[in-house]
Structures are given as structure tokens and as C-alpha cells.
């Protein structure tokens, strides 16, 4: 399942928040969306999923116009993890993860064997198997974030769209999420993720799209993340160093 935007623009009120953006994400690759707050990362994701109408341009989700898909059809093609996911009622972790099977017709209390297998695999991938019976309000912030990620994985959609999945996580938990994302791409899924953690993006992603003020500033492999691009994006001088082989970004 590939996702593409061609020359896509989005207006919120009178303001153009996405301006002529073209990107493509293909199966097996992780694309990281970078850029400052308000650059249009979330809008780009929502436009790609057909959740925000385009003022101009076109979106394609596996060959279809995503804005014409029913919620169920869309959910079978793409799993979307919004920023700051919620669990309004304190369900058990496994019941929350089972909600990922909604589009497959499953009620959390009556899972078919394939549904149960998908839930179990998602719990295992996010290291949540020992916590499956716990209530959501008894988890730490990192555990909650992993539970919501597991919900998205349980959906077993060929495209994963993750909006800041590592926000608020400690470095070890964030690296854990990066590893989960890599494993998903290894299994043939396409992944689009947004993050403010550039070092983490360098570890998880194959390609990078840097947005600023609704436009694509740079796109390509790790070599596009030059000091000039980072300064243009974030408005601060930046250096990219390697420490024992691991990328480190230093802002002045």
C-alpha cells in the first residue's frame, strides 16, 4: 500500500497550512516527517488519509482517493495513531489494543482466532504481554504510549501513520518505538512518522521529509539533513555529528 500526495495544498480558514506538497511512501520504507511546530506535519498526514480536505492537488492511498473511502475501508488500508492518543474510559490494555480490530468486524470481547493472533502479536511487539490485563489508568506514560501504538499495529493495515509516537517518552522507550517501527517496515509495511527527535528519525527512517511553513524544504536520504537545511527549518544553527557511529544533532 503506497501513499502519495501530488501538489497538495490545505487551507484552514484563510490560512494555507500545506502548500503544494508532493511526497510518496512505498511499502517497506519508513519516512520521517521533520519540521518545527506548526510546519504542517499533522495536516500532511491527515490530508494523506483523506481526513482533511485538499484545497488543491491530489492524494492517493493504494490507488484510491482517500477522501472517498468509508471509515472502515480507510482503516483496513491505513492505521493512524494521532498525536496525544486518548483512553477516555480505563479499559484493560488488551481491550484497548483489540479496538484496533474494529474494522475487521471484531468486538473486543469476542475475538476470532485471527483477531486474537493480531492482538497477541501487537502486544508482544510492544513488550506489553505482561501488562495485558492492567487498566490503562494504571500504566506509566511510556506504557500508555506503547499500548496505543499496539492498537495501531493490531489493525494490521499495510500503511502505518504515526503522529509523534515518541512524544513524552524517555530515551530508552523512544528507541524501543524506533525498533518497533523498523520491524514493521521489515515486514513490508509502509510507515510515515512525524517526530521532533532528529537523532531518533535518523535511526528509524529510510527517507526524510523536512517541512517548514507548509512547504517541503528538503526530501531524501540522511544526507539531506545538512546544517543549512536544519537551520532553515528550525531557525537555529545546527551541527550533525557522529558519536561512535550514532548520529547526534547539536543545536547552538
Amino acid at each position, binding site marked *: 500500500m503506497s501513499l502519495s500526495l501530488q501538489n497538495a495544498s490545505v487551507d484552514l480558514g484563510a490560512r494555507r497550512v500545506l502548500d503544494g506538497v508532493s511526497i510518496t511512501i512505498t511499502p517497506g520504507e519508513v519516512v520521517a516527517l521533520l519540521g518545527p511546530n506548526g510546519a504542517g506535519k499533522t495536516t500532511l498526514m491527515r490530508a494523506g488519509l483523506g481526513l482533511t480536505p485538499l484545497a488543491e492537488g491530489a492524494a492517493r492511498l493504494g490507488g484510491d482517493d482517500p477522501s472517498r473511502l468509508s471509515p472502515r475501508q480507510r482503516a483496513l488500508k491505513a492505521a493512524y*495513531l*494521532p498525536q496525544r492518543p486518548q483512553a477516555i474510559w480505563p479499559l484493560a490494555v488488551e481491550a484497548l489494543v483489540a479496538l484496533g480490530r474494529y474494522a475487521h468486524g471484531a468486538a473486543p470481547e469476542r475475538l476470532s482466532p485471527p483477531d486474537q493472533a493480531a492482538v497477541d502479536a501487537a502486544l508482544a511487539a510492544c513488550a506489553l504481554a505482561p501488562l495485558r490485563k492492567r487498566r490503562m489508568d494504571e500504566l506509566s506514560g511510556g506504557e500508555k504510549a506503547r499500548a496505543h501504538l499496539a*492498537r495501531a499495529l493490531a489493525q494490521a493495515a499495510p500503511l502505518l501513520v504515526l503522529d509523534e509516537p515518541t512524544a513524552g517518552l524517555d530515551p530508552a522507550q523512544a528507541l524501543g518505538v524506533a525498533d518497533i517501527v523498523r520491524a514493521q517496515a521489515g515486514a513490508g509495511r509502509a510507515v510515515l512518522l512525524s517526530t521532533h527527535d532528529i537523532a531518533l528519525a535518523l535511526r528509524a527512517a529510510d527517507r526524510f521529509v523536512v517541512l517548514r511553513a507548509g512547504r517541503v524544504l528538503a526530501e531524501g536520504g540522511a544526507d539531506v539533513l545538512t546544517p543549512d537545511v536544519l537551520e532553515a527549518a528550525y531557525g537555529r544553527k545546527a551541527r550533525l555529528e557522529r558519536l561512535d557511529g550514532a548520529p547526534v544533532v547539536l543545536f547552538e
Partner: protein
Amino acid sequence: MSARVSIGLAAAGVVALFAALWLGPTPLANPFAGDEATRTIVWEIRFPRALVAWIVGAALGLTGAALQGLLRNPLADAGVLGLSGFAALGAVLAFAFGVATLAPLGAILFAFAAALVVTMLGWRTRGPASLVLIGVGLSSFAGGLIALALNLAPNPGALSDLVNWTLGSVEGRSMEHVLLAGGLLLAGAALIFAAGRGLQALTLGEEAAAAIGANLTRTRTLVVLGAAACTGGATAAAGVIGFVGIAAPHLVRALAGHDPARLLLPSALAGGALLVSADIVVRLLPTDAELKLGVAAALIGGPVFALIAARLASRGGDQ
């Protein structure tokens, strides 16, 4: 777990219904005795009254659970959000203007209008408090309109009866009321149960619920129509009875967990059992004039409501 809770609450309802045949201002040794007086008291007075109480309680408990799931707010309830007030207004308009046969229809239509307004305004409210404030506004508005309708009514003789009726009571109800409220409860329940999975999805919030494939327009429509049918029927039969819709789901969450779909049936059963029990207490109280059931429900439910609200606020849920 939720099945066992439902069986227990259904049994509690049956026990309360039987107790309602026995207990009352006139003590009966055997409610199943064959003499004329006993038969009249039990089958023409106590049985329909208790059954109406159960149906009204079930309708309000179910509506409360459904509205709480839809609006993601444990303080949502037909009474608090103004659905009951508007249903009463619809019925009062019919009574006051001499078309009493249209009272149930008026109650349903006005409850529907209130449900529509409150879900539209309440859909994006952040905390429980702002939603309750919307409900307070709607309820006061309905109260004002009821007073206005009574003032303008061409038939002022029936006024005191009507005011009494809006306080909520199942005194003197017949099998006709059972059929009316029961039929509407069945219709409303069918709509609300069809929305169960959508309510479950809404646990994730609006955006993620749509992302997992839930059709939220359908869920909202089903709950609004179901809540209007249940509240309209309950109010047409018994006047305004508040807080059952908060107390019943709150009680059930402690027993059966928080899954909004699996709360629906037990909340209906708990609401029924609660209201029949409250009505027995009302009948046994040694007061000169019988205490209104709606007043009793408010005396019990008001503090429960305040307690839940205070607990939510202390948890920071009131933002």
C-alpha cells in the same frame, strides 16, 4: 463478567417487582389471594405502577449509559442534560392545549430536539463541567418555557396537576402507561444497542475512533434517536425523574468495568431495579401526601452526582 452482573441485576429487578406487590400503605398477607380487594390492589394498582417504575428506570439508566459513552463524560444523563426537561415541555404543551393524546409524541419530539442540541454543543466540549453547564442552561430554559406554557394555557384548571406531574411520579399509572413507555423503551434500546460498538470505539477519542473504522455519524444518530425515544417515553409516563441515568452506570462500572458497550444492558437493568426500589420506599414513608418519586430520586441522586463531579475534579478531569 458483564453477563453475570446483568443476571444479578435482572434478578434484583424481579425481586423488587415482587416486593412492590407485597409492600405498600395497605399491608397484604398474600398478594396472590383470590379476593376482589386484593386483586384490585395488586393487579390494577401496584403491578402497573411497579412495572412503569421499572421501565422508566431502565429507560433512564440506558439513556445515561449511552449518552455518557457518546459524549465521553460520566456526568451525562437525560435529566442533567435537559432531555427530560424538554420532554416534559413537549408533554405539558400537549396537555395544556387540550390535546393530551399527543403528549407522548410531544415528549419524544422535544427530547429529540434537546438531544440534538446537547450532542452538537457537547461533542467538542473538553471537560465534564462545560457539558453539565450546557445541560443546566437547557434545563432552565425548558423550565422557563414550561412555566410560560402553563401561564398561557387556555385551560388553567389542570395547572396544579401538571406542575405535580412534572415533579415525576408513577402514582396511579395503568397498563396503558406500561405499553407506552415499554414500547418506546424497546425501540430506543434497539437503536442504542446498535450503536454499542461505535461507543466502544469512542473510548479512543473522536479522531482515533474514526481512524479504526467507526462511522461516528451513524453512532451519533442512533444514540440521539434512541435517547429521545427512551426519555420521551419515560417522561410521558412518569414526568421528570433525574439522576437515575448517572447513578445506574456509575454503580455498574464498579461491578462490570468501563467498556461503554458492555455497560448498556446492566445500566438499564440497574436503573429499573433502583427506581422500583425507590418507589417502594416512597410508598412506605409515613407522610401525609406521598413523596414524589422524582423528588426521592433527586434526594438520592443529587449527592451521588455531586460526589462523582467532585471526584472527577480532584482527578483533574474537569478541564
